[in-house]
């Protein structure tokens, strides 16, 4: 149906702010990316990088007083930020579904699984309750929930965390959406169940040709689940590219730090690296490159601070298959293209 290769979702120069009494918080800054149909995209970063705010701003579900100050979100070429609340409601859950972090607090504790699934369907489709039940049971089967008829009568607290997350995934799939946004979908779960959920999500997205945006602080999850990755730091994308490239051959100093901080099973007794310092709070981001106070490369080989890093926000440059926003990387490329991977 969609002949042109135009992206399913395009975000351009998105800017999200929280005006507070003691100063404004800029959670997302001039951020652009796109998502193809059926693509699985990861967004990674430390907590506080603005990942969740980005996710909620895509659905226009920002909590007060947050608002989108500038930028465009285009879905199938349609501009979303200017839609009315009523028009947007028709998209939510229907074309753009979301999976939250903690499955146990996501589902309403006083309504049964069935009530919540059926109301989701009825909010967007004209269906009889009986038809809706059949669809719900079918979806629960697809996410491998045992005895789905019985589950419909149960309350969320009667289900385990893993089972709840399966239900939440089933609800996300109920209306055959085009995009699923999953905010830390496995963080609240046990490790063994994490793996199951990751496999399930991957398979379902492929089967239904759904675009998936996974938000996580866990590079392991991103590595297993996604094809392409954005690395966020203090509200901006610092590096993006194919997930395999990012993990095997990160170029931005921050991404390198993230990867070095990962424990490696194959190398026992090795001390974990950590990135010195901590992420700035979003209200007091340093000038220039937000990462510069923690960056190992902010000094020139001569031992002087790199002026660019402190004064100018780095613009993304192409480097291999990735785009990197870093003055140091840009310099390397400009100086000696063949030596660009000299880490």
């Amino acid at each position, binding site marked *: 149906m969609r002949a042109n290769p135009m992206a399913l979702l395009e975000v351009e120069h998105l800017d999200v702010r929280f005006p507070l009494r003691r100063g404004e918080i800029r959670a997302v800054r001039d951020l652009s990316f796109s998502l193809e149909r059926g693509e699985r995209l990861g967004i990674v970063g430390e907590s506080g990088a603005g990942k969740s705010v980005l996710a909620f701003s895509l659905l226009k579900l920002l909590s007060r007083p947050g608002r989108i100050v500038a930028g465009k979100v285009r879905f199938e070429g349609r501009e979303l930020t200017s839609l009315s609340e009523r028009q947007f409601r028709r998209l*939510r859950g229907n074309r753009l579904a979301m999976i939250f972090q903690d499955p146990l607090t996501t589902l309403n*504790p006083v309504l049964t699984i069935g009530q919540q699934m059926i109301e989701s369907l009825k909010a967007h489709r004209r269906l009889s309750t009986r038809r809706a039940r059949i669809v719900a049971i079918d979806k629960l089967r697809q996410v491998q929930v045992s005895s789905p008829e019985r589950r419909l009568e149960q309350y969320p607290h009667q289900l385990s965390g893993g089972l709840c997350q399966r239900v939440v995934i089933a609800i996300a799939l109920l209306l055959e959406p085009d995009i699923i946004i999953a905010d830390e979908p496995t963080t609240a779960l046990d490790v063994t169940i994490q793996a199951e959920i990751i496999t399930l999500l991957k398979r379902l997205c492929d089967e239904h040709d759904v675009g998936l945006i996974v938000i996580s602080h866990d590079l392991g999850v991103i590595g297993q689940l996604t094809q392409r990755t954005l690395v966020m730091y203090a509200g901006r994308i610092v590096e993006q590219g194919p997930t395999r490239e990012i993990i095997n051959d990160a170029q931005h100093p921050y991404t390198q730090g993230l990867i070095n901080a990962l424990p490696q099973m194959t190398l026992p007794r090795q001390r974990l690296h950590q990135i010195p310092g901590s992420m700035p709070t979003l209200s007091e981001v340093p000038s220039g490159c937000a990462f510069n106070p923690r960056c190992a490369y902010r000094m020139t080989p001569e031992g002087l601070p790199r002026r660019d890093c402190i004064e100018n926000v780095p613009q993304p440059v192409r480097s291999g298959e990735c785009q990197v926003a870093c003055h140091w990387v840009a310099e390397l490329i400009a100086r000696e293209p063949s030596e660009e991977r000299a880490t």
Partner: protein
Amino acid sequence: MIMFLIRRLCQAIMVMFVISVIGFTLQSGLGDPVRQLLGQAATDADIMALRQSLGLNDPLWLQYLHFAGNAMRLDFGNSYFFHEPALEVIARYLPATLELIVTSAVITLLLAAPMGVYCAIRPRSWLSKTLMGLSVVGISVPVFLTAMVLIQLFSIGIHVTLFPEGTGWGSWLNQALSTQGGMPAYGRGSPVHVWGVWSTNFASWRGWLYLLLPALSLAFVMLPLFVRLIRAEMLEVLESDYVRYARARGIRASRIYFLHALKNTLLPVITLGGVQIGTLAAYTLLTETVFQWPGAGLMFLDAIERADMPLIVAYLMVIGAIFVVINTLVDLLYRVLNPRITISGRPA
């Protein structure tokens, strides 16, 4: 379920035991049925004989057992004043009080739910702020004062002359602020008898008129508490993940507010309701006094004036029993509405 009922039953028995001991102490310590029955002119011999026949010379525990046994057979003795069984007197007065309580409870909940929800979803609107301000004032107004103000406004009527009568706007404002009065504010009129046993104010238009002011004054006292509670709970619930998730699923706002959120605020409201039933009973005493509403409360106060001990004891026992029953019902309702607790009391 059975465990829950047994536990509640044990609790109820304990409460009733405590109340019966209080009642017994009153009866034996303060009431002197001999004088009441024989009058002042009785001889000592008569008194002794009667004391013996009434069992007043028995040891205390035996007297208590006697009292408790009678109480279980719903026999609290005859009222000194009415000369008929105390329980029958109460049964005659109680419906009027119950009608008052039910009406005001319905008014309270019908007003409190939309007000509380509104104040929570539009916390910054002027209407919310006004309502919240009024609720603080409302908490500080005693029920009998509310009742009197209602009488002054709607029964007696006020004639405002604050603004200059000569000017058009002045007399208009005076007119607008003045009230007619005329609402009945004394007694319950002539209640209609239905089904032979129940005389009610619900069955006639006049009856409702008589009921309105007393019920409103009670409702205005309860209203602020409930509005504030519902608002506070709603505000908390609206911040929850599941409300955000419901929005992310594209559920309609009205459904989110009145089903997803309100159902979660219901549990604390029920708890408060259960606690407030007792207070409501105390308030009916005051309201009934102001409006001379011939209910159980007014009867109780008269009984105190007349030192009508059997009636006082019977009233305490009946009120105690009603509290126990209502608290049990509230507990039961809480469990039915809260899926997180199974009826047996174990978390599921």
